[in-house]
């Protein structure tokens, strides 16, 4: 087990090194002069020179990369071109809204999608099942922001149940915090829910065709107990895997959702950085998000033993 964990950690390290190398070398690989693109159309030659110096583009590649990695390992993600503030500080200021949004979405999505998938599998082929499958295809097809605007238009503007936009920190009370996050979470979580529900259904159908389920039913166990205790637990591995893989959807969806709902999180920071072509911020956000994504999936890998004791590392 320990050998496996060490090996997986080493693999994770390699993956992150590739991510870092890639994100860094993009500055060199993109055709044209990135300094000129970042400076914009009205920049003077001096402006471009200044930006090139700031990004370190006037030094040889390896010197720059070495320095960048050394600073990175010390937790320094560089300085924003536009505000001159350290990227780590800019990101730290925005962590709370994004963590609130993504965690709440994750919890809601899993609590809704897994039972829905189980019910669809238990009633496979019926109208309920077809309904679930149909809605999930629809969910895959509507972009996050279109859904977000539909929700705002219905629940905030027409019915006036929930605030249109904005964010309140948890310190201002539970309801203000929650009420500003309900619609964003539903918008962000819909694709994620569709994905989890589909995989849950498929995994359950696999398990439900096994002999031991027939035995459990034959000996007259409570059907609900058969579904949850016998079937769902054994369908756990694919479900937990897709929950981990789907975190990528949450991360990229958060950028869009925060833009629509004016939530001052990391996504909003990224979009502002795109408009100003503030590459160090984008670099930092990609490293952070990819790191989280890789770690989540590492944790998922390690959790397999909890669901299936036959898996030994």
């Amino acid at each position, binding site marked *: 087990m320990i050998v496996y964990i060490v090996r997986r950690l080493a693999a994770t390290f390699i993956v*992150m090194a590739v991510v870092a190398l890639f*994100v860094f070398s993009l500055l060199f690989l993109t055709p044209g002069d990135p300094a000129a693109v970042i400076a914009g159309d009205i920049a003077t030659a001096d402006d471009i020179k200044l930006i090139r110096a700031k990004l370190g583009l006037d030094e040889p590649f390896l010197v720059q990369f070495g320095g960048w990695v050394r600073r990175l390992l010390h937790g320094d993600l560089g300085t924003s071109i536009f505000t001159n503030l350290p990227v780590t500080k800019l990101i730290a200021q925005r962590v709370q809204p994004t963590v609130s949004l993504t965690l709440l979405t994750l919890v809601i999505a899993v609590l809704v999608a897994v039972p829905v998938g189980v019910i669809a599998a238990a009633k496979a082929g019926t109208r309920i099942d077809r309904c679930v499958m149909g809605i999930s295809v629809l969910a895959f097809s509507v972009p*996050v922001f279109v859904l977000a605007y539909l929700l705002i238009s219905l629940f905030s503007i027409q019915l006036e149940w929930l605030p249109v936009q904005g964010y309140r920190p948890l310190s201002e009370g539970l309801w203000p915090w929650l009420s500003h996050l309900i619609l964003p979470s539903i918008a962000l979580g819909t694709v994620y829910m569709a994905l989890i529900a589909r995989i849950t259904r498929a995994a359950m159908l696999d398990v439900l065709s096994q002999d031991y389920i027939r035995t459990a039913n034959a000996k007259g166990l409570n059907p609900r107990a058969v579904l949850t205790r016998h079937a769902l637990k054994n369908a756990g591995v694919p479900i937990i895997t897709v929950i981990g893989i789907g975190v990528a959807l949450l991360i990229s969806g958060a950028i869009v959702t925060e833009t629509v709902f004016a939530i001052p999180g990391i996504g909003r920071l990224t979009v502002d950085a795109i408009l100003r072509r503030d590459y160090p911020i984008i670099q930092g956000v990609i490293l952070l998000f990819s790191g989280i994504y*890789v770690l989540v999936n590492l944790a998922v890998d390690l959790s397999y033993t909890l669901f299936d004791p036959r898996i030994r590392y």
Partner: protein
Amino acid sequence: MNTVVVQAARSVSPTWQRFYDALRRHPTAMVGAVVLIAMVVIAMLAPWLATSDPQALLPIQRLRQPSSEHWFGTDMLGRDVYSRVVFGARISLTVGVTVAALSIVLGLAIGLVTGFVRWLDAVVMRFMDGLMSIPSILLAIALMALTRASVGNVIIAITLAEVPRVVRLVRSLVLSLREQPYVDAAIATGTRLPLILLRHILPNTLAPLIVQGTYICASAMITEAILSFIGAGTPPNVPSWGNIMAEARSMFQLASYLIFFPGAFLSLTVLAVNMLGDGMRDALDPRLARRL
């Protein structure tokens, strides 16, 4: 005698015949195909379907609600939203189809070679793992932040994010195909590697790749819209569905139709492609059809 020959010729490829039959029997796939064809026709006939120049500014008529004159209303610069949406179909379909085709071709080339050449496999796959751990929209954002906005660059950015996933799929197919007896037979008779790849491996990877291609097409259209929506996509003067919605961001409460018309067209197109993809997947693997 002649008819027998003709019939034999017709049934050269029973797999594809069966595939076509299954697809025809699949009602949702047919609906998807019909909607998709309609969208392609709209895109091709855009100059004739549009009621005015999609770029024509008419500030005096800005933010008009949908009416008989402007079917989908006008935007904040007085441009006719219906005409812009009709022209937007061209951008979305171009991006979707081009990204799908490019990433399949690139992924196929890389995957075929890495699946057969052991020492290359480890290196390439580590690199692909790294690329895949960057959420695809973020990867595209990074590229778009460093290049000038253009439809071509959007296509490159989304393709780069999709290629590793295709490589993964091709590689897994190749790894199982290379264990097949007929591949051993080809090796034993001295067939050279390029010929084995082209003649014996490639044809057997095509069916799953076509299905994967439809899903890539669908997700590329959504990614393009998202990129444009957050300002990292097609240049603002291009009437793409994402751009029309991006411009409406600040005046949503005033003119929600600016979001809903392009949004509905985009969702409908993506839905059609997804339905077609599901139908093809079911046709190719009837055993899986009941499950996913």
